[in-house]
């Protein structure tokens, strides 16, 4: 597996100044929006059945970042979520654990305790999530807090205001600074909030900007705005990580988040991954789903495959 260690790769010179960075990002080929959406839609029509479906469901469960990002989060709720992440279906111990739980920084310690001794990681959003409207010092303090509390992964938001204003170097510097604050212990996911970037061209530029700045993961959205992960914007980001690895040899993960609620949707995304980035990404080290209600639907589908009966919401937890 290729490493994600930040290396002085072929693209280091593009960040020399604001103008070189702008020239590079605006020099990326434009996105054919109609073609992109048609491609995403056509890949969504694949029929995945029986054993392939069972494989896909287990894979999808293992890729879930089980998320709770509410103002009303309590340590108790986080503990419950952690227990669910470790054993998603207590009635069937063959169910894989999820990849991680994703919480606010002040809940990291509680989450860490809840998943102790398991393979489940603790991800924390940081940098004044979800708006990202705070001074850099505040954002970095937020990150350091989460890392100190034991977060294995940091989900940062980019400064969309700066990005849309064309201050790419500012966005870049911020990601670099956050990456530094993460140190060696935490992997960095960079959230673009694609629903606020307006165009596919912008999503492509943001993807490259994030990857050059040293992101370990690029993530679509916070789940807090109207438009979240869609097959089309995820496909675009998968193309970006594929091209980035071809160019630099560095593999970067992708995480669609928000709005993925059914197994059917999740399996469509897995098809996108396989057909675009390739099998190397079909692993929870490289692909994640940011979701909460998705897990219940995956579990119900899993129960259906095991028993032959349609399951219902009475047989999964209410979270």
């Amino acid at each position, binding site marked *: 597996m290729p490493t994600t260690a930040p290396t002085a790769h072929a693209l280091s010179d593009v960040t020399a100044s604001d103008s070189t960075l702008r020239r590079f990002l605006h020099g990326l080929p434009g996105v054919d929006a109609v073609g992109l959406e048609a491609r995403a839609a056509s890949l969504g029509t694949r029929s995945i059945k029986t054993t392939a479906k069972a494989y896909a469901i287990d894979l999808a469960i293992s890729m879930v970042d089980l998320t709770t990002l509410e103002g009303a989060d309590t340590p108790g709720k986080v503990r419950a979520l952690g227990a669910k992440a470790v054993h998603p279906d207590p009635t069937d111990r063959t169910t894989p654990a999820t990849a991680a739980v994703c919480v606010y920084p002040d809940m990291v310690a509680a989450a860490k305790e809840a998943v102790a001794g398991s393979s489940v990681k603790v991800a924390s959003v940081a940098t004044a999530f979800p708006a990202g409207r705070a001074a850099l010092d505040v954002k970095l303090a937020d990150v350091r807090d989460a890392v100190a509390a034991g977060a294995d992964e940091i989900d940062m938001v980019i400064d969309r205001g700066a990005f849309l204003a064309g201050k790419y170097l500012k966005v870049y510097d911020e990601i670099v600074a956050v990456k530094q604050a993460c140190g060696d212990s935490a992997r960095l996911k960079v959230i673009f909030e694609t629903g606020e970037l307006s165009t596919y061209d912008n999503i492509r530029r943001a993807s490259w900007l994030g990857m050059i700045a040293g992101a370990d993961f690029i993530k679509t959205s916070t789940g807090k705005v109207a438009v979240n992960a869609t097959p089309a914007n995820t496909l675009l980001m998968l193309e970006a990580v594929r091209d980035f690895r071809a160019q630099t040899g560095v593999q970067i993960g992708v995480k669609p988040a928000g709005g993925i609620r059914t197994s059917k949707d999740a399996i469509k995304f897995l098809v996108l991954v396989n057909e675009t980035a390739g099998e190397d990404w079909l692993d929870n080290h490289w692909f994640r789903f940011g979701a909460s209600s998705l897990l219940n639907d995956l579990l119900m589908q899993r129960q259906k495959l095991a028993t032959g*009966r349609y399951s219902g919401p*009475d*047989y999964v937890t209410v979270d």
Partner: protein
Amino acid sequence: MSEKTEKTEPRLSVFKTYKLYVGGKFPRSESGRVYEVTDSKGKWLANAPQSSRKDARDAVVAARKAFGGWSGATAYNRGQVLYRVAEMLEGRREQFVREVADAEGLSKSKAAAVVDAAIDRWVWYAGWTDKIAQVIGGANPVAGPFFNLSSPEPTGVVAVVAPQESSFLGLVSVLAPVIATGNTAVVIASEKAPLPALSLAEVLATSDVPGGVVNVLSGRTAELAAPLAAHQDVNAIDLAGADEALAKELEIAAADNLKRVLRPQPVDYFGTPGTERLTAFLETKTVWHPTGSLGASGSSY
């Protein structure tokens, strides 16, 4: 062209595409299948969608989604909605008389009597919505200083295997009591004569019944009833239209999540029904509340 030939030229027939009714929408079967529906003499009437188990699954999801709103609506409001169904049926009486006559091989006057009885049945059950609680609920005398009150509550999502022979009056007689008490329903229409049921769906869609409260599937009864009987998110099943062998099989499948089961029984659908079908899909909630008579003041309330 002369005026005369214009008059005699036959008009092209406009055939109706019968569709399912799921979640307030009229989809085709997910499977894309249809089957031929004939009248009692074997003459082709229309193609009806032949639903698959996935349509049944979608219908349960729709029914579950609608349950909160429908069971939470006031009984008075449900009564008004059901009465509205009768009003809408009255306006399309001719169509239903024709469909029932074709489906069941009845003369026009007999079919009209069936349709009238079905419309009256809606009104009858509409009246029951806000009265059933008084009849089967109430205060229970208990050996202690408590108010002890029982009140009926809807069971949940009910799968209804509609009667095979009485395709309209029978259907209304089993469906109306289920939704009158606040349950939501997934109906499997009569296999041989599904058209009145599919047309009834059009009436329901235009009479303030929220989408998903009634979902109508047509197709092979055995194929659709099996997954519904085994479905973990269906709370009860009415086996009115299942034959003996099928009913037994379904009852076994239904035992797994302890569904309420209403066994098939001989019914004269023209007779006044009684409250049996209303109470079949109700649960009784009982609450205890201290009367306060232990207080120092000596007041019993």
